[in-house]
């Protein structure tokens, strides 16, 4: 724990709200096919919860829990999941992102395989959007200065 800089009320409410916010982002992700939502919206909500953490605790505390290297790795990981599902379909004999081909690997019929493939792609989108949003926010906050700049004690 770094030195206190925030406000007790804001910190308490942030601690209370952030888990629900992240749970809600996963809900939006999982219901993307039947209601408004999906990977992009879920990722934005997840990033918003981390922004709330920064507002309450400062960037130094967030960097301690979620270092910038991890953010960049997650950016790449999400794109990798997306492309991996796409190329897997390609290698199984279909087109790029032709999810029904996944039924050759999964123990389901092509229609359900399409659902699972979409869900996997949405997970990748969510991870990338969350990480990119956090990277943009941190860059804006520090004026592009990386570790320097507003580090939570201003």
């Amino acid at each position: 724990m770094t030195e206190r800089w925030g406000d007790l009320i804001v910190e308490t409410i942030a601690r209370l709200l952030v888990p629900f916010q992240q749970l809600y982002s996963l809900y939006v992700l999982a219901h993307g096919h039947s209601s408004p939502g999906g990977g992009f919206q879920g990722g934005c909500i997840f990033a918003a919860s981390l922004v709330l953490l920064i507002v309450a605790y400062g960037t130094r505390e967030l960097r301690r829990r979620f270092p910038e290297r991890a953010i960049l790795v997650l950016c790449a990981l999400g794109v990798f999941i997306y492309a991996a599902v796409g190329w897997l379909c390609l290698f199984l004999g279909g087109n790029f992102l032709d999810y029904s081909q996944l039924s050759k690997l999964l123990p389901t019929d092509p229609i359900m395989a399409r659902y699972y493939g979409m869900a996997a792609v949405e997970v990748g989108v969510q991870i990338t959007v969350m990480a990119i949003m956090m990277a943009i926010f941190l860059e804006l906050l520090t004026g592009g200065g990386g570790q320097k700049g507003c580090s939570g004690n201003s």
Partner: protein
Amino acid sequence: MMEALAVLFISAGLFFFFTATVGLLRLPDFYSRMHAMGKADTMGLLLTLTGLALYQMGEGLSWSKAFVAFKILLIAVFWFLGGPTATHALLRSAFEGGKMPWTKDGQAVLDWPRQEER
């Protein structure tokens, strides 16, 4: 019956929203405006969402309707946690930034507290 109750709640909520807007437009400075917005807006939203949940419940009870009403009430709960906190954070940062409340004769209501704290 349920619809009449819903209309009652939503009208009360709209009254509070109207009060909040009048306060935002007519009060003299930042603190009193946030005072009007933070309180009356929260109350108006709670009443409006309660009315919407009641309207959603309708006449016959069923699980799907009750579930949607429960989700609407969840919005109310989280707004009730988040909205006043945002108001508090805004007001506190304005006060720590050195903005003094408005007074009729233009005098500061108190000495700037930062010198004592630090």
